[in-house]
């Protein structure tokens, strides 16, 4: 019995041992699996998880770079940055942003429009990105928000920089302005998503936006799982935006703006004929670019946009005008280039007939016999009617193109207008095959009317190319070549020649001298007084409406009797000093009346100021070493 029991006991022990071994084996397998997995996670995949761990704990924060200042040619500030306190909200930290905004409203009343914008931006941006609630806070508001910060989770005060234009309206057109990034401008660059970040929207601010913008810095902060910053690990302050220096002389600019303010709507460009430096670029009326940096109310924007005087438009680059008689110099060059003898006289009886059409000279009873110089000095229309027909529109248009007309000059401003210099091909392309070029249109083109449209900056470049001996200068406003990669001096190499004979250039230049300085010249009023320098130039009076036969019979109305918007545009282009040309000027007074009566005196006043200051004397603004020596 005992034996049997013992046997059973042994059997049981054997079975137990076997089964314990099985269980031990299973445990061994399971433990091996654990170790294998640990090895996989901690050795094989360690790098990947280290990266993930860093992504977990390290947050990158962008630090917006301060925007570069814009200076005039003497280093005076045109655009700078000012401190601006703004309140921002972070959706993630606010938990219930709507309720937090309700509480914030008791301190800082928010309009429905603002609330809608904030809600929309919060929905669009990543939850940890701050959204601007309000900018330009007063000290009182800042203090109140700080005091109540415990009740306002996710709300914080941010010190930012805003753009400020110390001379505001005088430089608004070419300087442009900065404004908030619109949805269409988002490129995925996180810098653009930063609240309150502003980019250049017009003018120099836009052309050199990337250089002015600088490089965003970043701050690497360690955060815990709730987004709270534990410590800053690394900081890269980024690169502040580059300083952009312009060729503009702010004093002269202000003089020009002040002088032009005597007219309702006008534009003026002054440039260095040797370098292409634009010294003055002015348009009236103007606007306050600071309003854009501050944020423009919808009503203010509407008022600006609907103003018939187009205060937002940079008329220097975007105002399109018939060049009128100013264009006669181009026709004269086309004639000389075609071999026309400038001494040949044309009789001006006061009108010119082509078939059944009669074209009138501005001088009702005619100029009598006119050679080329006389015709330029006295701006005889009949001479140019006749001569334009002799050489044809295509040669005139080709010459105009050599003088920077009929296309963008390439000035470093965005959205420059092209203008129109018509020819046969253009007519067919624009109006169709059956509407070919007509002789009468050549007659109109001979005096810069008809289809022809130019901008003041084109006219200024035109006269500069005439004055500098036929070199194809290109106007520019920045003293150096600015790009995000860095700054390079502007290469003042030889400009390419536009291929004109010196005697032809001299003849036209001398005629321009006569226009201003001869008693019978149309711009005798523009003769410089009190300076030992002379200005040469050419007037233009561009008709903006057709004078009907009936009106002509009744006697052409004087400009002053017409409603403002039907009056002629007054133009003047010129250069000075005549012995060593340095500055070219173009003035357009919209609906100002006669070029000689209105535009020429204005040009005289501005040119006088320019010559007195002689901005070209400033060695800092230009790289003289790189500029080839020229006759002065």
């Amino acid at each position, binding site marked *: 019995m*005992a034996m049997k029991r013992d046997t059973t*006991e042994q059997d*049981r022990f054997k079975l137990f041992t076997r089964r314990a071994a099985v269980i031990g084996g299973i445990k061994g397998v399971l433990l091996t*699996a654990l170790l294998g*997995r*640990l090895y996989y996670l*901690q050795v094989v995949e*360690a790098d990947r998880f280290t990266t993930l761990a860093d992504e977990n704990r390290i947050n990158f924060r962008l630090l917006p770079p301060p925007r570069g200042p814009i200076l005039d040619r003497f280093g005076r500030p045109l655009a700078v940055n000012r401190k601006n306190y703004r309140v921002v909200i972070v959706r993630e930290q606010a938990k219930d942003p709507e309720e937090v905004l309700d509480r914030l409203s008791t301190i800082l009343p928010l309009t429905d429009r603002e609330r809608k914008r904030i809600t929309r931006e919060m929905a669009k941006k990543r939850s940890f990105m701050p959204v601007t609630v309000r900018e330009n806070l007063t000290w009182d508001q800042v203090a109140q928000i700080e005091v109540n910060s415990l009740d306002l989770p996710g709300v914080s005060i941010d010190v930012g920089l805003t753009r400020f234009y110390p001379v505001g309206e005088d430089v608004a057109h070419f300087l442009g302005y900065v404004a908030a990034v619109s949805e269409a401008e988002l490129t995925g660059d996180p810098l653009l998503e930063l609240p309150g970040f502003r980019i250049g929207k017009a003018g120099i601010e836009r052309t050199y936006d990337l250089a002015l913008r600088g490089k965003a810095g970043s701050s690497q902060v360690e955060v815990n799982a709730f987004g709270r910053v534990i410590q800053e690990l690394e900081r890269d302050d980024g690169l502040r935006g580059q300083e952009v220096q312009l060729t503009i002389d702010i004093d002269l600019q202000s003089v020009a703006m002040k002088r032009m303010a005597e007219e309702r709507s006008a534009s003026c460009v002054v440039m260095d004929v040797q370098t292409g430096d634009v010294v003055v670029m002015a348009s009236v009326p103007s606007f306050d670019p600071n309003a854009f940096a501050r944020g423009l109310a919808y009503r203010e924007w509407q008022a600006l946009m609907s103003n018939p005087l187009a205060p937002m438009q940079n008329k220097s680059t975007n105002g399109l005008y018939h060049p009128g008689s100013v264009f006669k110099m181009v026709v004269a060059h086309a004639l000389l280039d075609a071999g026309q003898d400038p001494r040949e006289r044309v009789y001006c009886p006061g009108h010119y007939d082509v078939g059944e059409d009669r074209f009138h000279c501005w001088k009702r009873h005619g100029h009598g016999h006119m050679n080329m110089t006389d015709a330029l000095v006295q701006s005889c229309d009949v001479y140019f009617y006749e001569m334009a027909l002799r050489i044809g529109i295509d040669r005139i248009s080709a010459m105009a193109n050599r003088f920077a007309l009929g296309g963008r000059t390439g000035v470093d401003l965005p959205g420059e207008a092209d203008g129109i210099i018509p020819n046969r091909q253009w007519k067919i392309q624009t109006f169709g095959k059956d509407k070919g070029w007509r002789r009468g249109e050549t007659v109109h083109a001979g005096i810069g009317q008809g289809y022809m449209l130019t901008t003041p900056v084109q006219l200024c470049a035109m006269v500069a190319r005439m004055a500098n001996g036929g070199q194809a200068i290109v106007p520019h406003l920045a003293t150096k070549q600015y790009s995000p990669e860095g700054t390079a001096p502007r290469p003042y190499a030889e400009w390419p020649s536009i291929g004109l004979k010196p005697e032809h250039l001299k003849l036209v230049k001398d005629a321009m001298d006569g226009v201003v300085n001869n008693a019978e010249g149309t711009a005798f009023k523009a003769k410089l007084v009190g300076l030992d320098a002379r200005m040469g130039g050419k007037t233009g009076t561009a008709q903006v409406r057709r004078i009907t036969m009936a009106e002509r019979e009744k006697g052409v109305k004087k400009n002053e009797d017409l409603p403002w918007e039907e009056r002629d545009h007054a133009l003047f282009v010129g250069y000075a000093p005549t012995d060593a040309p340095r500055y070219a000027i173009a003035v357009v007074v919209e609906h100002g009346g006669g070029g000689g009566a209105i535009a020429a005196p204005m040009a005289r006043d501005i040119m006088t100021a320019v010559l007195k200051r002689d901005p070209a004397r400033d060695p800092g603004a230009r790289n003289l070493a790189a500029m080839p020596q020229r006759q002065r």
Partner: protein
Amino acid sequence: MSTYELYVVDQTKYSFADKVRAFPYGILLLLAAVACVGIAMLYAAAGGNWDPWASRQATRFGIGVGVMICVALIDIKLWLKYAYVAYGISIAMLVAVELFGTVGKGAQRWLDLGLMQFQPSELVKLMVVLVLARVFHSGSTEDVGKVSFLLWPMALIALPAALILRQPDLGTTILMLMVAASVLFLGGVRLWKFILAGVSAIAAVPVAWHFLRDYQKNRVYTFLDPESDPLGAGYHIIQSKIALGSGGLFGKGFMNGSQSHLQFLPEKQTDFIFTMLAEEWGLVGAVGLIALYVILIGYGFYVALASRSHFGRLLALGCTVNFFLYVFVNIAMVIGLIPVKGAPLPLVSWGGSAQLTVLIGYGLIFCVSIHREVKISRNMMGMEA
């Protein structure tokens, strides 16, 4: 009487001094070493503070060791004799949880004992081992082969299983069933019966499913597929893997685990303490801790095989399996091998009842070790005579 003879032959009397001498001090030291690792991690988890976890954990360990020594010194035959009493007490505690228990994390599991919150379901696992060891100790090989013999132990298992499932705590139920099954397996139950039980359990699932309420079904879904709840359980596992993986071979250094200390790692003082250890001490530290556990488990096997009584063997190995399952489930959980289940890492995680249960389990193993030469008659009547 042969029965009497056996009883006499089996009678091996130990004096208190014998027991003290036979006490496995080396293993006690090993347990203390693991506990020290835990206390160090809890110190780190609190950011270098003894409060709120490390110091209290040390105190509890001390108390737990006291309980363990008592358990170990009690005569093994008393454990055999009063197995049902102990089992009954633990069942009573489960019922008490049902009636007066504290609700935590959506389930009613905790019993407030004043000094600590106690989770009776942990203790029940050991008591089921104890009572099954007694049942199988008394059954011969032929008895165990009979289905009728198995009905009683099945009932002993089913009662606490039903009570724990009611809390509801599916995880602990499954663990308890696994421990119980391994005791049945060691006790000699035929393999085909396990297969049959397994198949019928699977077959029963759709029927049981039909009776589950929606919230219960959801709980099961989440249990089966934690990724379906990425902000809940899934998030925990992902963060755990990141913390652990970024630790690399040698770790980031004590108290330098960025993921743990920056709160990316959830529950780092309880369920995910192993992750924190692996982040700070690397693979070397993790494998080192596992090695300690392996020695402890291996010791359990040694004690079971060295014991001369079937009761002792089943009890020692049952407790060892219970201990192993704690270790495995916790580590497998934090390294993403098995779905999340709130299982603590024995002796290391913050938490009183798990630690106490593990120490009581080792107390039983020690008891078997101390009394390994004691032979016990299969016939209980003899003992009682």
